[in-house]
């Protein structure tokens, strides 16, 4: 019996064209995305450069796992449909009376459809395999063909997933006797994954992820690019446990279903909330002769619109009053709560759940779920009459099609509205929970019910259309998914125009300071365009609307033609005209983006180098004096400025050529106080080569005047950096001197490197003076001290001047600010912040004060009389930076949540301490423009901030901070294409110069002693304080450290700073026994393995700390031992009973794996 059921179903599927459609679609998607990422459509990378292989097992796993989500929709469409068709056609009432064994029925149905699903999923792998053989791919991106990669991802992930969740879907459809239960089950699985991702991390999420995606991520998290290109994913371990766990759960669920399942005519569970009614007993009664009362039958337009509303209420109760919807909503709330939790608790900091933050990522994610539910429920609604068989009754009533159609659209909108309301409540709930009471209801409503709702509205129209067009709801859902995915990947094949990117507005970033910025007009124009398109689709749906029993598609087309009459034609033409008009408008506005990078950026650079490369070594005068007048117009998003530089020839020969690069996004004019001629000008890079009429002799100076204004914004593109509130203009708008391209940092040994400091190549320290004007409600800020403030007309003017010379890197800020002020030891500290962002002002102030105290004691006084923290919108970044006496700090840091962050650090305090410490490390001592510069400026600063932090919050907190830095390093080091640099050669790799830098310097503090280390630092600083070229390099600092290090520990300097060395220590065995006289004897077996630049090295002489703790966590003894072999055993006599032994408790070693460092006795 099993065989006949199996082969019947299997062959039945093979005969269906839709089967091949599914396969073809996956094949095509796989083929195109593989060819696209393999560089078929792009210029190839330079020969020999290390690139990510598109066909490494790692990458194959990555791609196929992504598509796993779409495979999941095959489960209800194929496996679910195989069970469901028995209920739909009512064959179950006959079938169940046949002498079929339950097991045969179960297995036959499941295995046959499961095999079909498996075959369809194979089309994807096949597509990828063929695509990777294509000629014309970038050879750097394609490794050798390795079947194992495909085998692995299918064997370990795809097939188990299809099997487990195929079973689940099979059972759900069997329970509910409703195909949509299967689709919604898949959405619920998505929720489950999101919840696990947001609620857990590390090993737990790897174990609990229903699809195993995070398990693969976990076991490959520390892989370098080299590893990613070569290794296969280790499937033993957490991947296996994950698979076994979910397989077990799925089997348990299906076994339970199997036991409970019986061949009865009525379903086990109903889809709706009400309990099943008992069959009704007939009672006798005579016929009464009643004449029906006269009632009014009304068909006016207004009554029909009322009818639309009433019908939608009837339809909505059907959706809402079902278990599935309740579960979806409940899990949806959970998922949103967890997603908000994740957004407000990033790896680095906890944030307050401001309304803006709650609404961006979490709400966008939730609206995607609403979209998926729209795909499903629209199918349910459109096909509802026909699937219940009530259609012939309904269709013969005098209710017009448009009433039916609009009632269904309205029902979808109501469902979306309800779910958005759920989102709103979840947001407020989490705000309440965090004790944050500034709910911005206006913003909630605007963002949820306008920004997110319009795209959902378009999806509702589209879904209605697709489901009206296709008689089969699974195909409809599949097509809709395809549209969604397809539009998302348009960019991959080079289509960027908004005219074709259907309904994908993306995430609109929001800042409390600057709102949505200038994104709204573009959003509305594009969304109106798609909304009108959606309405056109509705019009087509009206034409194709099912009514009665059309016998073929031709019949429906004929019906449709008849329906396009009178007002419908008028509406249609109006909509079509509007659609085309808006399309033209968008086309026109997009054409304004004349600056769009028509050429591939690599090519542009190459061309430029070809043309101007010869100027690379041209010696230039240096800027010594900067004077500007800047006029900001926040309302118009524009500015214009005049200014002048004083340039001095600091060289010993005359200069006759001046190279000038002006702002990329700005319109600039330049003038000199002597004859000059522009020899060549590159209009793309705004680079000019200027021939001086008379050459500039050594020590002679030159006045360089300039006028700069912003390029006006186009509709879709923002060219000006001036914001309505929170403007943050930086030095990139100014003209700069010299050839500035390919200006990579040099090796620190290179003497040329010492001539420039790391932040400007055309100046050392400059004198700075400026006047800034802005609108009357704003405060403008620039480096220096305020000399004068005045009003002129409706403009507010500020004049700033710096007393001491500063680096040529500064900013002008303007905004509506509140000011927090205090004076600390004669230094004026102020914080310019957005109203409402007061939570962290005290912590920030404390950070400034603590940094002043700490650094002044170590390195001498702070060089300015004032320090200002200035808030800028998070749309410009999440960082903070030091520019002379100003510290522009992202809004993100102002909404950091320091109260509830149990496993986070007080980011507000830390950031201001860090930035102020830069006044010494970065501004007093300025590193040369060589690799390793960030080691001096950032690693030392971060180490000092860590010391300041530990001083304030205690040793334990400090230790936690260290382990966060360690994590930051290990997580962050994965993606580098080049081999990872050691600290001494670090470039812009934040995880190294922050994470590893702090760890390394802290280790040095232990080895040398705090006083000694700080003396090395101070000596270094004092030697270079405020000095111009030659600037110091990392080589010198490391050398100074080496000199201060005793011979026995010199290896440490090399391990920490000069190489990438991992020293993995672990306790293999530990035992404790009581020796006589109340002493405890502990025996340890210790393993120490070392690896430098990925090659194992011998352990010659390694100092390792071992801490032994009692039951209460108190330290009993701390031993430092010298290890000379990989495995060593030792014996320690203790006075108290130990409970736990930890190797390297102070994190002095750079280790990848610390889980094996502890041993509980």
């Amino acid at each position, binding site marked *: 019996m099993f065989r006949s059921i199996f082969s019947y179903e299997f062959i039945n599927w093979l005969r269906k064209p839709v089967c091949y459609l599914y396969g073809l679609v996956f094949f095509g998607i796989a083929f195109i995305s593989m060819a696209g990422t393999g560089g078929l459509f792009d210029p190839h990378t330079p020969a020999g450069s290390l690139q990510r292989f598109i066909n490494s097992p790692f990458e194959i796993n990555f791609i196929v796992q992504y598509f796993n989500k779409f495979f999941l929709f095959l489960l209800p469409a194929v496996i679910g449909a195989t069970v469901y068709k028995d209920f739909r056609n009512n064959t179950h009432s006959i079938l169940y009376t046949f002498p079929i064994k339950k097991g045969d029925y179960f297995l036959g149905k499941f295995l046959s459809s499961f095999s079909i699903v498996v075959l369809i999923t194979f089309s994807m792998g096949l597509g990828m395999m063929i695509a990777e053989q294509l000629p014309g791919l970038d050879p750097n991106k394609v490794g050798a063909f390795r079947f194992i990669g495909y085998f692995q991802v299918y064997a370990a992930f795809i097939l188990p997933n299809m099997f487990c969740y195929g079973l689940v879907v099979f059972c759900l459809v069997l329970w509910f006797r409703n195909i949509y239960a299967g689709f919604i089950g898949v959405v619920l699985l998505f929720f489950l994954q999101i919840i696990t991702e947001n609620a857990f991390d590390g090993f737990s999420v790897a174990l609990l992820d229903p699809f195993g995606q995070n398990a693969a991520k976990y076991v490959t998290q520390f892989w370098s690019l080299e590893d990613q290109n070569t290794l296969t994913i280790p499937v033993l371990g957490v991947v296996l446990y994950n698979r076994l766990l979910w397989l077990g759960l799925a089997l348990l669920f299906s076994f339970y279903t199997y036991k409970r399942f019986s061949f009865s005519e009525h379903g086990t569970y109903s889809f709706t909330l009400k309990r099943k009614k008992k069959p009704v007993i007939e009672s006798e009664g005579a*016929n009464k*002769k009643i004449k029906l*009362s006269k*009632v009014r039958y009304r068909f006016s337009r207004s*009554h029909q619109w009322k*009818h639309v509303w009433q019908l939608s209420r009837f339809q909505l109760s*059907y959706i809402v009053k079902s278990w599935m919807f309740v579960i979806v909503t409940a899990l949806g709330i959970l998922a949103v709560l967890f997603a908000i939790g994740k957004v407000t608790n990033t790896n680095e900091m906890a944030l307050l759940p401001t309304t803006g933050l709650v609404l961006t990522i979490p709400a966008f994610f939730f609206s995607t779920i609403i979209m998926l539910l729209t795909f499903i429920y629209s199918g349910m609604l459109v096909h509802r009459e026909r699937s219940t068989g009530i259609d*012939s*009754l309904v269709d013969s009533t005098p209710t017009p099609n448009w009433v039916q159609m609009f009632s269904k659209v309205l029902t979808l909108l109501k469902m979306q509205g309800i779910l958005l309301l759920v989102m709103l409540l979840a947001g407020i709930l989490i705000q309440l929970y965090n004790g944050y009471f500034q709910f911005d209801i206006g913003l909630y409503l605007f963002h949820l019910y306008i920004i997110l709702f319009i795209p959902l509205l378009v999806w509702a129209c589209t879904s209605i259309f697709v489901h009206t067009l296709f008689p089969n709801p699974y195909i409809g859902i599949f097509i809709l998914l395809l549209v969604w995915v397809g539009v998302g990947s348009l960019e991959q094949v080079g289509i960027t125009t908004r005219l074709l990117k259907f309904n994908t507005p993306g995430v609109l970033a929001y800042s409390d300071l600057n709102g949505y910025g200038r994104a709204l007009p573009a959003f509305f124009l594009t969304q109106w365009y798609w909304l009108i398109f959606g309405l056109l689709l509705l019009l087509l749906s009206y034409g194709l609307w099912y009514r009665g029993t059309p016998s073929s598609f031709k019949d429906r087309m004929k019906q449709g033609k008849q329906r396009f009459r009178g007002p419908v034609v008028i509406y249609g033409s109006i909509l079509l005209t509007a659609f085309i008009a808006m399309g033209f408008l968008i086309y026109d506005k997009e054409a304004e983006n004349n600056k769009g990078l028509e050429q591939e950026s690599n090519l542009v650079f190459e061309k430029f180098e070809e043309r101007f490369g010869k100027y690379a070594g041209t010696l230039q005068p240096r800027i010594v004096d900067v004077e500007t007048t800047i006029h900001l117009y926040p309302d118009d998003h524009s500015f214009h400025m005049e200014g002048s530089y004083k340039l001095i020839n600091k060289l010993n020969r005359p200069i006759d050529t001046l190279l000038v690069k002006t702002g990329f996004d700005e319109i600039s004019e330049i003038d000199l106080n002597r004859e000059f001629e522009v020899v060549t000008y590159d209009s793309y890079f705004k680079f000019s080569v200027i021939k001086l009429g008379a050459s500039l002799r050594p020590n002679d100076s030159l006045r360089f005047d300039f006028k700069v204004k912003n390029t006006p914004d186009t509709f879709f593109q923002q060219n000006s950096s001036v914001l309505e509130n929170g403007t943050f203009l930086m030095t990139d708008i100014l003209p700069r001197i010299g050839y500035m391209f390919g200006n990579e940092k040099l090796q620190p040994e290179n003497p040329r490197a010492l001539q420039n400091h790391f932040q400007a190549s055309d100046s050392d320290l400059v004198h700075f003076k400026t006047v800034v004007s802005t609108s009357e409600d704003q405060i403008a800020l620039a480096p220096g001290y305020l000399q004068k403030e005045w009003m002129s007309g409706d403009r507010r003017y500020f004049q700033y001047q710096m007393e001491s010379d500063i680096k040529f890197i500064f900013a002008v800020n303007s905004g509506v600010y509140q000011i927090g002020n205090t004076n600390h030891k004669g230094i004026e500290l102020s914080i310019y912040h957005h109203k409402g962002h007061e939570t962290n002002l005290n912590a920030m102030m404390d950070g400034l004060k603590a940094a002043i105290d700490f650094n002044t004691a170590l390195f001498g006084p702070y060089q300015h009389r004032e320090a200002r923290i200035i808030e800028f919108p998070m749309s410009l970044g999440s960082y903070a930076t030091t520019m002379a006496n100003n510290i522009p700090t992202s809004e993100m840091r102002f909404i950091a949540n320091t109260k509830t962050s149990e496993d986070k650090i007080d980011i507000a305090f830390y950031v201001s301490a860090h930035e102020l410490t830069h006044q010494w490390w970065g501004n007093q001592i300025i590193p040369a423009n060589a690799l390793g510069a960030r080691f001096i400026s950032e690693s030392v600063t971060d180490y000092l901030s860590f010391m300041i932090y530990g001083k304030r919050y205690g040793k334990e907190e400090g230790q936690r901070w260290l382990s966060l830095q360690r994590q930051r390093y290990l997580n962050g080091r994965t993606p580098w294409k080049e081999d990872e640099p050691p600290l001494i050669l670090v470039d812009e790799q934040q995880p190294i110069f922050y994470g590893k830098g702090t760890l390394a310097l802290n280790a040095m503090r232990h080895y040398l002693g705090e006083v000694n280390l700080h003396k090395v630092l101070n000596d270094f600083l004092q030697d270079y304080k405020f000095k111009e070229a030659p600037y110091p390099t990392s080589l010198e600092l490391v050398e100074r450290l080496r000199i201060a290090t005793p011979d026995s520990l010199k290896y440490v300097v090399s391990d920490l700073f000069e190489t990438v060395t991992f020293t993995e220590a672990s306790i293999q065995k530990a035992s404790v026994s009581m020796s006589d006289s109340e002493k405890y004897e502990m025996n340890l077996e210790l393993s120490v393995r070392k690896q430098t630049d990925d090659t194992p090295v011998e352990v010659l002489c390694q100092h390792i700390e071992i801490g032994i703790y009692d039951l209460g966590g108190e330290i009993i003894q701390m031993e430092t031992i010298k290890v000379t072999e990989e495995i060593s055993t030792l014996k320690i006599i203790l006075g108290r009973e130990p409970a736990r032994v930890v190797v390297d408790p102070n994190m002095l070693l750079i280790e990848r794996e610390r889980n094996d460092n502890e041993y509980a006795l």
Partner: protein
Amino acid sequence: MSLKIEQLTKTYANGVKAIDNLSIEIQPGMFGLLGPNGAGKSSLMRTIATLQTPDKGSIRFNEIDVLTHAMEVRKRLGYLPQSFGVYPKVSAEKLLHYFARLKGVTSKRERSLLVGEVLELTNLTHVRKKSVSGYSGGMKQRFGIAQLLLNNPPLIIVDEPTAGLDPAERNRFLNVLREIGARNTVIFSTHLVDDVKELCNEMAIMNHGRILMKANPSEAIRQLEGKIWIRNIEKDALESMERRYHVLSSGYNEDHSLNIRVYADARPDTNFQPTEANLEDVYFTVLDGFNVFDS
């Protein structure tokens, strides 16, 4: 008040000619459409009920062109299809409210009144709170009648409503139908001759998409008077009898012998006894293609 169908033709996509150049005029009262399964009755009724468009021909109801003014017809139409489903777990009362709205009764007060009346009329008041999906066959059919009455329709189409009903249910159902048939045009299709006999003042017999005969039932029976003969035979003899005579129908006796009814102008032989003609004889005579009626 008449329904006039002219030269109606419908061929399905699979090539089946469901309605074949059919013309008929139907007057108010109970009109029975009799025919075997697959005769095209349901296709014809669906077409009149605006659910299906014909390839050719016209239908007019009281000067309304059914094919071009479907909505106007639907306002006047009550339709009970051969089989129908309902939304699961929705009570009869709620469902009737829903249909009343679909039929244009916008006032809630009036709707409640109307729904109460049709429930009463179809004897469903006591089970109005129960969901229709749990109803027995007869109750469900009466529910079908209840929804059909909501717009007080002058044109009622019921397609094989008694199929599958037990005798008691069938009686109750026919009583309800009789009650409403008095005032309106009711087209009633069935393959059961008895339904027509009990109910209709006009009837037509349909097969292969064509109307074979249209008549008043008693008039039709009268025309057969004296031409129907009955004889008792062994069952093995049926085949030879069918070859020799126009056997209309046969029925078993308790002793497994057969009674056959034969159509003949004169008594075929002495074994045949004259018998009274009935509507079934009319039906089979027509289906067998004897053109003895002048319609």
